């Protein structure tokens, strides 16, 4: 099978859509209420060292994905254990996002439809995208990123007349501890989930610098997410933002321009759907690649359908209701640490040691 390669620009758009993923709708609220935007900025700063580590790993092993690197560094047995952990993480994340998504659709547009058909419809499109390969995903993200970005800008422009700029005052009312806690939560969801791109790194060309890619993507998405959270705060005030499940949705509900563009919140489901497709596809591809590696199958595309159905099954059983889903976020922050921090750190240290040994030899 021909190796799939995508250009840096396409990867850039995929990473941004991935980071937007669920955050552009679920809002980026945290316990810090009106200082959430500071948590966001702090989270972005937190992420930079980890991103540098991810980029370094990609740089040290050009055109190889994470699973191949792990196997090379740790051998068969220990490597397989780590691969199983990463596969579990990507599968679980896939299920979580899928569940996020179907809860949102059910609550927002179709309260009487059971969630399973929604999940199935979504996963079928995701499987179609994943089967078409990562190049298609790259081109698609370029096309759709403009659409998503445009919708965000339009909603911000339309909501200008309803914004109350004093909503972010008083400044720094919350102590630094809660801002930091909020930042930690934002770091885990969504920024550090980009660890999954290490699993797709074999599509990046050798000459592209992963560091520049990651950092620019982080910058761009932070700016947009900042705009989103500021819009939410200005429109609704910190209380509402903290209390609603889907903050952006509630914010857009309030838009009313000349009595004509009112209640256009159905429209921003479009954002979530498009970004969600990319996020779920990336997680699915990572899980499928890992599974294929575990069992020694060299073409991961053949396993896409069963892995995707496994993700659907998992997302059906993972939460009982939407409140549990929102509540899980505070546990997710800690639960994701081994996968987002510890495993990449270990891989990086092992890689550096090996490079060092090789240089000495």
């Amino acid at each position, binding site marked *: 099978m021909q190796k799939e390669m995508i*250009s840096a*620009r*396409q990867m850039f*758009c995929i990473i941004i859509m991935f980071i937007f993923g669920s955050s552009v709708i679920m809002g980026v609220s945290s316990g810090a209420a009106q200082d959430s935007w500071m948590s966001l900025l702090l989270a972005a700063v937190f992420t930079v060292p980890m991103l540098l580590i991810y980029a370094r790993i990609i740089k040290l092993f050009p055109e190889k994905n994470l699973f191949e690197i792990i196997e090379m560094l740790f051998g068969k047995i220990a490597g397989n254990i780590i691969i199983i952990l990463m596969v579990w993480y990507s599968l679980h994340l896939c299920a979580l996002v899928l569940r996020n998504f179907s809860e949102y*659709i059910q609550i927002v*547009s*179709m309260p009487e*439809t059971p969630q399973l*058909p*929604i999940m199935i*419809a*979504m996963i079928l*499109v995701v499987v*179609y*995208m994943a089967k*078409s390969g990562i190049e*298609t995903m790259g*081109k*698609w993200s*370029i*096309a*759709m990123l403009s659409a998503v970005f445009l919708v965000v800008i339009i909603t911000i422009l339309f909501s200008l007349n309803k914004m109350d700029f004093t909503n972010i005052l008083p400044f720094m009312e919350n102590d630094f501890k809660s801002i930091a806690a909020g930042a930690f939560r934002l770091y885990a969801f969504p920024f550090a989930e980009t660890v999954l791109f290490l699993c797709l790194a074999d599509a990046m060309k050798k000459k592209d610098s992963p560091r520049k890619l990651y950092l620019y993507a982080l910058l761009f998405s932070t700016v947009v997410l900042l705009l989103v959270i500021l819009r939410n705060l200005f429109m609704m005030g910190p209380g509402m933002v903290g209390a609603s499940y889907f903050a952006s949705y509630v914010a857009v509900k309030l838009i009313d321009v000349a*009595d*004509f*563009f*009112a*209640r*256009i919140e*159905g*429209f921003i*489901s*479009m954002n979530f*759907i*498009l970004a969600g*497709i990319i996020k779920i596809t990336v997680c699915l591809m990572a899980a499928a690649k890992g599974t294929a590696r575990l069992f020694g199958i060299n073409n991961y595309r053949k396993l896409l359908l069963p892995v995707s159905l496994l993700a659907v099954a998992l997302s059906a059983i993972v939460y009982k209701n939407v409140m549990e889903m929102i509540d899980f976020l505070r546990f997710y922050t800690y639960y994701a640490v081994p996968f987002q921090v510890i495993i990449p750190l270990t891989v990086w240290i092992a890689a550096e040691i090996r490079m060092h040994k090789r240089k000495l030899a």
Partner: protein
Amino acid sequence: MLRRLFLRDKQKIVNDKVEDLNEELENRDLFSSLDKNIETISKLFQDVDILRLKYITNNHDNRLNYCIVYCDGVVDNAIVNDSIIKPLMLSSVPVTSKNPVDIIMNQIVQINDTEKADKLSDIAESIAYGDTVLFVDGAPEAIVFNTKGFKTRAISEPDSEKNLNGPREGFTESLMMNLSLIRRKVLTPELKMKFRTLGRRTMTRACICYMDGIVDKEVLAELNRRLDKIDIDAVLDTNYITELIRDSRLSPFRTTGYTERPDVVIGKLLEGRIAIFLDGTPFVLTVPYLFVENFQSSDDYYLNFFYSSFSRLLRILGFFLTITIPGFYIAVVAFHQEMMPLQLFISIAASRSSVPLPASLEAFIMIIVFDILRETGIRMPTNVGQALSIVGAIVIGQAAVEAKLVAAPMIIVAALTGITSLLIPKMNAPVIYIRMMLLILSSFFGFFGFVLGVAATLIHIINLRSLGIPQAAFSGKLQLQEIKDTAIRAPWWRMILRPSFAKDKVRMNGGENDHD
């Protein structure tokens, strides 16, 4: 799967039969005796009553016996009489029995296009096509003369691609005439034309044309590979070829361009594409095909570029609208009523209150009715047929509204859909299916289904390939080069480079420096 096995056996039987026939013809050699050869030919063409045999004996040498075989109606009788029969009868050139065929070919018969033939299959093919075959007593070879004189349609403007400015020539059903139309436009020997035959039973002539220095040889090799794989008993129209060399078998989108006009073909050849001509059809294929070609028309290059850019944008908009309008309408009216402005909502609700059907079913029925009326309009003999059918559809729609069967906004939606689909005639096939799919998804899942459908359609379009080359290349580079001939039509002094799949990228040398 069982069905496939079944058909495979049947196909094998047909193939075997045809192969036997062909083998029979191939293996039979010609005899030296005139009588035996004529007997073979008569038996082969038994029950073909237009076959004519004419025995000729030379005036000066009674031992020279010839027989010409031809099919009446396909040959030009004047040439047969004046250039073949007359010289053969009257010539006094001695014909030795050592090499009679060469002498006859080179010295006696006065025809410009002659060939020797000794295989029965070739001879049969030539007789059927309009050539005259001469059998000489005492020679195991026959001579084939080109005496084709069948009537073809005169060159006229093609009905399907009308032009406001620009040439009004169109291709006809004769391969040679079509080739002559483009041969005259490119006066360098770079324009190559390679013949081949397609179809086991029909042995239709096809011609592959390309510009030698511009075309990508890989693409040419791939095309030849695929044409070699075609194994069907008849190729009657270029559409057969299109479907047999497809990349993705189940996509409704086109993977080859087709046109009836020589200027369009030359334009595409000069961009590095390859043209496939087929005898018997005026439609010529061009490969590889890019997605933007769906929105291009040759008119664009002959008219002012401001106007053409606008028309092109209008076409792209038309494509988008015709696919999304019904789905979007249903999503809003049936699921997200709050998205409409209040006044609009009230008027739509008022008109829908007396209608018996649910919105999605209504939309479905209206679109199908509209398509039925449009389809009948195409089959009507006059040009006004299409316009007439649309007007008819709207009138019927109005009557339905007054009978309170259908809501008025639905008529507008269906009419808009139909009218915007006329902007892009090349895409009427995919548009129907995608529109239906989006409509069904919207009916089940509302706006969510609609967006999923649009996303899936985009994935499909990105996946399309024509002869291995991706049809839609979103490289993300917002360079002017990428949109010069796609979304807009840049003026000619700006179009310096060719599309990326051509080998010789430079079309013009620094054209922009010559004007300011």
